């Protein structure tokens, strides 16, 4: 047998063997930057390939134009008002029903089917129905946001309440702990993370709902403005609004909820 084993190097030697620029290129921040550059290039490529896809230059130009016309802030003000009211309502109602469902198995059996049906109705249906019911105005986007978001809040809250330690609940009831303290010291900490997850879902789903309802209901708002450009066959204007939609939801989700979720689950993840 000839010696087949090649000279093995320790990982430290390997690390010092690779040059500094190479290590920098393969680092994680570099990967991120590479991704953004690649995505941008793909966009440019798509714009070159399909006539209908607007390129970055055209989109930036119409974005600037929309800002200078003052359309962005006035429309987003409308949208945010409707979105906030809808999400708030869905959280309030979702919390109430979710807590009842989590506390009793019988309530769970009763609400199970309505929630399942609610989960499976697409937002577009609510948008159509509410526009036909309430006409153009604030009501249709608010109700659409509420109806699309509320089942997600309910299932998350119910799951959280159900997950509250049975032993601790039994103990506090046999020691006669008053309801107020039971809620404050036992239920709330255990449920907070799930409620947050529910609200987060509600925000993501509701954002789609509010835009759809505005798209079909003709009374202003970000969705309506995007449709205006789409109907005018001005896809650069539409793409500018898409970028705004995406920025809003990503900022909300990443900056607000990602952080809040980490805080709410601190007690659980601390051991890791």
């Amino acid at each position, binding site marked *: 047998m000839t010696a087949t084993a090649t000279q093995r190097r320790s990982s430290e030697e390997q690390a010092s063997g690779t040059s500094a620029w190479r290590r920098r290129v393969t680092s994680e*921040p570099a990967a991120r930057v590479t991704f953004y550059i690649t995505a941008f290039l793909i966009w440019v490529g*798509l714009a070159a390939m*399909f006539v209908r896809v607007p390129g970055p230059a055209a989109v930036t130009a119409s974005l600037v134009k929309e800002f200078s016309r003052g359309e962005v802030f006035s429309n987003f003000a409308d949208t945010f008002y409707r979105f906030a009211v809808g999400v708030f309502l869905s959280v309030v109602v979702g919390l109430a029903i979710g807590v009842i469902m989590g506390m009793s198995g019988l309530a769970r059996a009763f609400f199970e089917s309505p929630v399942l049906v609610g989960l499976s109705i697409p937002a577009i249906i609510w948008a*159509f129905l509410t526009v036909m*019911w309430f006409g153009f105005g604030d009501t249709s986007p608010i109700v659409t946001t509420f109806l699309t978001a509320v089942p997600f809040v309910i299932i998350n809250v119910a799951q959280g309440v159900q997950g509250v330690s049975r032993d601790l609940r039994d103990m506090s009831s046999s020691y006669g702990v008053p309801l107020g303290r039971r809620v404050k010291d036992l239920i709330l900490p255990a449920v907070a993370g799930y409620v947050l997850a529910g609200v987060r879902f509600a925000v993501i789903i509701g954002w*789609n709902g509010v835009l759809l309802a505005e798209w079909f209901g003709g009374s202003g708002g970000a969705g309506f403005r995007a449709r205006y450009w789409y109907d005018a066959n001005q896809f650069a204007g539409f793409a500018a609004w898409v970028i705004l939609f995406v920025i809003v939801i990503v900022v909300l989700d990443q900056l607000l909820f990602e952080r809040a979720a980490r805080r709410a689950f601190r007690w659980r993840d601390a051991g890791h």
Partner: protein
Amino acid sequence: MSNPVIEAPPTAPAVTWQEGEQLARRASSRRRAKRLVLLAAGWVAMLLVWNVAAYYLPAGVLPSPLEVLIVMWEIVASGAFAANFFASVGKTFVGFLVAIAVGAPIGYLMGRYTYWRAFFHDGVTVAGTIPALTYAVLSLIIFGISDLGPILSVALVSVPYIAINVAEGVRGVDQSLVKMSQAFGRSPQQIRRDVFIPTLVPYIFAAIRMSFAVAWKVEALTEVFGGTNGVGFQIRSEYQLFNIDGVLAWMCLFIVFMLIIERLVLRQFENRVLAWRPEERVGR
């Protein structure tokens, strides 16, 4: 052999074990019956609310469940439902296959290498939060009004779910098992077939379950915006005629059959494929 010390206690227990079992069984069946009644009550309450609302609202605003049911029957009897439904389902599944073909390699890279995880991380999280409306209209802009639009939007919306789950699965592969297989001289191919794939399959099913629930809605949405056939297209035509009962009838049919596919067909298939691992079989 008989030892008097460990014989049965002189006082007989209050109930024999047979009686105890019978009591427990009766209690559990009573609980199940109560649950079933409440489940039915949930449906009845929903229909009742709908019916009462239909009765009190001005005529033409909200048709009653019965009227919708009649329209549903007409749609099914005319054969329009089967044609449009299969068109929609076909597009959904083609989009799904595209999503798996794209998402699985991305997920594999993400699970395997830290570089690719960092590379794709932002894209996948952003893609997962973008409103479905965007996907629907963007795919229409790219492909115009054709069958390719819904396929693309289904693929776009499903890729992040599949990538995330596959990445999770690849990271979940038991490394000590891989090392042991290598130590015993198994070929990479064998390791792939007997260690990697079995670990991955449950994650892929989770991905399919999660994204299917979203995918068919996006598919219908895209058809609403610019389809030539399919359930979404029919909903749109009814909406344009201001036929609320038509919209509701198509919606109810679509939801019922999609839930059948989701809950029964996919779950059955999953149970069959995963039958070898008893702990995964518990389908809620």
